[in-house]
């Protein structure tokens, strides 16, 4: 139906795109460490060494773990397997609360303790009106 030229061009494009996709896959795979925005407490536990660089840890704020004294706030980030203690002084986002997602940026003192320089609240993919949330909570 189509000429030989058209078939050759399809083959050529197919090869070009396959090569590109594969190379980009390899590049992203090797850069994975830098592509992820944060590490989970379990990944922190399994780190080979603790670097002095800034690091981000993400997870859930453990229930009843927030302690506020004067201008310092302490809380625990958990991924339900491992936990990291965080201490921070500065402004916190409005949506920061217990049982909700959080990303803390700062310096690791050891495998259990992060002194944070920035706190971000992580929002999840659930959207619903307050009445529905209450109804769900009652169950």
């Amino acid at each position, binding site marked *: 139906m189509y000429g030989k030229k*058209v078939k050759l*061009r*399809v083959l050529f*494009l197919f090869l*070009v*795109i396959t090569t*590109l*996709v594969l190379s*980009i896959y390899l590049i*992203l795979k090797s850069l*994975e460490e830098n*592509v*992820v*925005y*944060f*590490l*989970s407490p379990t990944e922190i536990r399994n780190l080979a060494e603790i670097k002095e660089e800034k690091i981000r840890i*993400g997870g859930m704020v453990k229930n009843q773990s927030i302690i506020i004294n004067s201008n310092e706030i302490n809380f625990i980030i958990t991924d339900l397997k491992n936990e990291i203690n965080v201490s921070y002084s500065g*402004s*916190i*986002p*409005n*949506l*920061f609360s217990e049982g*909700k997602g959080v*990303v803390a940026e700062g310096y690791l003192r050891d495998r259990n303790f992060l002194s944070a320089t*920035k*706190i*971000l*609240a*992580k*929002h*999840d*993919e*659930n*959207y*619903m*009106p*307050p*009445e*529905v*949330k209450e109804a769900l909570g009652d169950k």
Partner: protein
Amino acid sequence: MLKLFEPNKIFKITSKAPKYVLFLFIIVLSIGLMEALFLSPEDYKQSHSVRIMYVHVPSAWLSLGIFSVIAFFSLGIFIFKNKNFSLIAKSLAPIGFIFSIIALVTGSIWGKPTWGTWWAWDARITSMLILALFYLMYLLSWKIFQNQDKAIKISSIIAILGFINIPIIKFSVDWWSTLHQSSSIKILSKTSIHSSMLIPLAIMTAAFTLFSILIFLMKYNTELIKIKNKGLDRL
């Protein structure tokens, strides 16, 4: 069949259709804005800032969708050497670019009260910025190269290269840990947006799609007028 292309026939449609699309767009947009701004409830956690979603999400979807269509036509340009495809691709780009910028800006405005930051270099946001840059390169390639054949070639290369970024944007939230939340609307599992918020989102998406079609038809019409002025009956 693909080689034949009569501007006169298409011109009849593209010169009349915009006013009907505009009419439909205004109606759907009014209903959508009414739903999104007043009738839909506030979110249990974000309260009223959830309303930004009704602009942010359709813009992001459309900017991805339009780029995919441009890339699809660019493949067609390479394979069939069809010049009409290049006019279609060229006319789609401006509105796609605007939507990618709207998605970035509204995301930033939403990010400040929700996350506590205007910007984060996570995979979703960075890949979305790359999409906006690809749109910009695409548009500039049409402006820079005066030689039409060269412009067609370079712009299609940019579109095909940029298309690889589209699945990266879509799946970035699943492949890597990102600050951006993962998709609420999934093909395989239940959506996690309550129906009272899903309906305004759907209406706003319809409105934005109509707007894209409107701008596309107007741009396409302009391209056809340019060809007519050159005194060509076909490309």
